[in-house]
């Protein structure tokens, strides 16, 4: 019999509000249960109805995105990684996710656990991660706190990825005052699986054992999910009982054991434990399987003594997964995980009750309907929107408001741009990452617009890139989001790939602010337009709201993770570097294109004139598609020596970078 428990607090409306639930949500729970929830049940609702887990403020919008494509295999859910068939019997699972709030408090562990979490999302589908990318945004480098956060995040990504043994091959880093105090740390993972070897994330068959595998459970990051849905304020640093700590060594063992168990056919269903630990995986697997679960929490291997059911269910200890297997396979499962020095402890059984029932010894501590907690009956909000007032001021900007560039100043302006943190070389960052482990990296970070990875056993490669520009989206959310997709596709194209599918990470402010929600709705609209026009469906992603800093919301920042396929790995990978003397360089533009003479949102305007104003740069999706199609055809026909997209800093920086990356050539 487990030890007797301390008396849990009395559950009432005030406690529900403390847990981050709204008054209406508490009424919805009382109505659905027909009774007051137990303390443990309240904890479950608070974490599962947080924005981070439920997407309650974004589901309505995200459903407008295109998610069909003949190459897409998995049924797309907001939380699962997308699965794209790339031929040769292989499929690619890829996803990008945010770990912004934990990284603001403890940059090293926040970033490290972000990398660990996204890789688990990939290998929970049976895929072996072959590369990682990131997308980082910080305040200005003038502030020492920003330098501390930047250094900690880069070390965290490096130490975790290098030890876990997956190369970090690409990413982007931006520094803007708007991210002061609330850095954005988006981590992306790309994995490969044989199409007949994927794993399901549902608990489909009553009677199947439910097994907790991986590390032991402690009080790590309890309420990490709710915390991720609350704004960061001065005293939020104290209310973190325990920071989540990543252990890449245990994760490497968990990866090898899990892939081995899936290969041996002893995994019927499996789900990674991300935010909300056991709770999210148990309820989500039951909801998608249309079943229920009986869980016995006293059997969970714990690392600390005296943990209550509430703490065990909500603990976010890292490197753990929930596995459902066929009766009788538990021994093989325990044997495989034991070989890798990991726990594999049966903690319950799948049932047909349509309820998840958590027990502590003989007592039932929670009995809840998974559909209501994590499925279709979770509340969905469609917030009201209001066009932000700042747009009046920013859109009034004319190019003539700033002095034109004299011939004599051109050189200074270019060197200022090339030296600005947003454009300058990021070698200091990616040289701290192992970019080559697993010997698949054909094009590493630096000279190329996108990384190119070899698909061993085929002639193919993958071109992968993360992209986004918060300043453009701030100035014009719809067009800025279109540009994010278009630019990611352009980068993949310039690297010799054909864009295939997208994952997104939507980093926005407080959704209850109508002006913020307007930028979110507009951005999703623009993202959908671009994905449809460029034929790159969305396979899944992540939403991070409540990204605010003392003066207001951060720049609305949807980041895009783009997957492209390189058909012939030996001839098509292309970099920005000039290759040989006598080569001729062309500027590829749509027919009848003329220079729009607009400076809105440019790096030049911000760096040289210290102004963020105007409208986002013009973009015509039809023309964009045509230019990319032409570039892909030229590369396929072997006519292209080097290719580079014109983006931050414009044509001047684009040409300068091509020279800088070349081997002593000029232009």
């Amino acid at each position: 019999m487990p030890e007797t428990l301390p008396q849990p607090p009395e559950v009432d409306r005030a406690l529900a509000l403390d847990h981050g639930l709204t008054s209406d949500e508490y009424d919805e729970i009382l109505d659905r249960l027909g009774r007051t929830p137990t303390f443990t049940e309240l904890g479950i609702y608070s974490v599962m109805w947080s924005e981070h887990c439920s997407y309650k403020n974004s589901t309505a919008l995200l459903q407008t995105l295109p998610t069909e494509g003949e190459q897409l295999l998995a049924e797309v859910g907001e939380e699962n990684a997308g699965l794209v068939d790339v031929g040769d019997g292989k499929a690619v699972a890829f996803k990008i996710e945010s770990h912004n709030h934990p990284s603001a408090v403890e940059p090293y562990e926040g970033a490290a656990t972000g990398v660990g979490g996204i890789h688990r999302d990939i290998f929970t589908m049976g895929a072996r991660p072959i590369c990682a990318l990131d997308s980082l945004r910080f305040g200005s480098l003038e502030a020492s706190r920003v330098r501390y956060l930047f250094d900690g995040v880069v070390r965290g990504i490096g130490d975790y990825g290098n030890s876990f043994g997956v190369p970090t091959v690409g990413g982007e880093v931006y520094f803007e005052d708007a991210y002061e105090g609330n850095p954005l740390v988006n981590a992306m993972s790309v994995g490969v699986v044989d199409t007949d070897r994927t794993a399901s994330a549902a608990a489909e068959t009553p009677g199947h054992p439910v097994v907790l595998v991986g590390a032991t459970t402690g009080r790590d990051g309890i309420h990490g999910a709710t915390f991720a849905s609350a704004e960061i304020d001065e005293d939020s640093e104290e209310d973190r009982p325990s920071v989540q700590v990543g252990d890449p060594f245990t994760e490497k063992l968990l990866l090898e054991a899990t892939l081995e168990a899936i290969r041996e056919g002893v995994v019927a269903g499996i789900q990674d434990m991300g935010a909300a630990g056991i709770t999210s995986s148990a309820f989500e697997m039951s909801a998608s399987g249309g079943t229920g679960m009986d869980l016995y929490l006293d059997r969970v291997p714990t690392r600390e003594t005296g943990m209550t059911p509430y703490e065990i269910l909500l603990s976010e200890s890292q490197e753990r997964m929930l596995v459902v297997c066929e009766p009788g396979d538990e021994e093989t499962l325990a044997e495989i995980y034991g070989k890798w020095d990991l726990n594999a402890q049966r903690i319950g059984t799948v049932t047909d009750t349509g309820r998840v029932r958590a027990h502590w010894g003989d007592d039932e501590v929670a009995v809840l309907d998974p559909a209501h907690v994590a499925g279709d009956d979770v509340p969905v909000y469609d917030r009201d929107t209001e066009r932000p007032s700042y747009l009046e001021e920013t859109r009034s900007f004319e190019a003539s408001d700033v002095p034109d560039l004299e011939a004599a100043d051109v050189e200074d302006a270019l060197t200022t741009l090339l030296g600005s943190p947003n454009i300058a070389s990021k070698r200091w960052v990616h040289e701290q990452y192992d970019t080559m482990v697993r010997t698949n990296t054909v094009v590493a970070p630096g000279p190329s617009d996108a990384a190119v990875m070899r698909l061993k056993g085929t002639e193919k490669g993958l071109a992968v890139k993360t992209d986004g520009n918060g300043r453009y989206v701030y100035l014009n959310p719809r067009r800025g989001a279109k540009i994010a997709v278009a630019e990611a596709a352009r980068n993949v194209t310039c690297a010799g790939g054909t864009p295939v599918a997208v994952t997104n990470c939507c980093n926005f402010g407080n959704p209850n602010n109508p002006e913020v929600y307007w930028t979110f709705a507009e951005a999703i609209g623009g993202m959908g337009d671009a994905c449809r026009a460029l034929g790159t469906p969305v396979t899944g992603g992540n939403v991070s709201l409540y990204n605010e800093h003392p003066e207001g919301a951060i720049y609305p920042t949807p980041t895009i993770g783009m997957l492209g396929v390189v058909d012939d790995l030996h001839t098509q990978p292309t970099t920005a570097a000039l290759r040989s003397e006598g080569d001729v360089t062309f500027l590829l533009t749509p027919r009848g294109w003329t220079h729009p003479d607009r400076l809105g949102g440019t790096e030049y305007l911000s760096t040289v004139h210290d102004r963020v104003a105007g409208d986002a740069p013009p973009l015509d999706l039809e023309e964009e598609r045509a230019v990319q199609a032409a570039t892909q055809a030229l590369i396929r026909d072997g006519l292209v020596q080097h290719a580079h997209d014109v983006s931050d800093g414009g044509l001047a920086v684009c040409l300068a970078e091509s020279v800088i990356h070349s081997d002593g050539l000029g232009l």
Partner: protein
Amino acid sequence: MPARFGVVVFPGSNCDHDAYHAAHHVFDQETRFIWHEEESIGDVDVVIVPGGFSYGDYLRSGAVARFSPVMQDVVRFAEEGGLVFGICNGFQVLCEAGLLPGTLMRNESLRFVCKDTPLRVENADTPFTNGLTEDQVVTIPISHGEGRYYADEDVLARIEAHDQVLFRYSTADGEVTDDANPNGSARGIAGLVNEAGNVCGLMPHPERCVESLLGGDDGRLIFESLLAHVSTVAA
């Protein structure tokens, strides 16, 4: 006469697949993984102790791995003259196991570093370097956070006297300078052999540059040296 390779796998090794790919797929040699709990390494000509983060590199890189059951047999194999090749983390494990002198400490920059690195060949007369020439410069990638080679002065003197240093970090034209030294290693040492010459430790990763597709193939020369040595010994 093919050479039989054995690649040791510790929990946490992550370059084991890369070494296997090089030996088996690129050089078409008989190669097998040796799990760290196996008592015997079996019938092999060359044992590769690969790179990675054995046991998470906790405490010191390689500190825990050397106690794995397989290491007892690797030490026996080495003492009997068998070829043992420790790459990166493998070099650290061989030092911890006492098969190679000195130790590998945290990089002087206190940062992990991963980049292509020029190396100058110091001794071309060993099973690992007979396919190279002295003073030749090859470019092989490094990827480590604890790669600073250290040994007491008297040990360093003995290593130099027995010509045990195989590679030093250098500039592209073979100058051994402080700037060319990525981690602060004593005497710019990137790789060395034991006095008998059959056990080698190398911080750079030759298995990462045996295919021009990946940007360089100077690493082939080391594998080719091993194959040449095994075939002459067997003949």
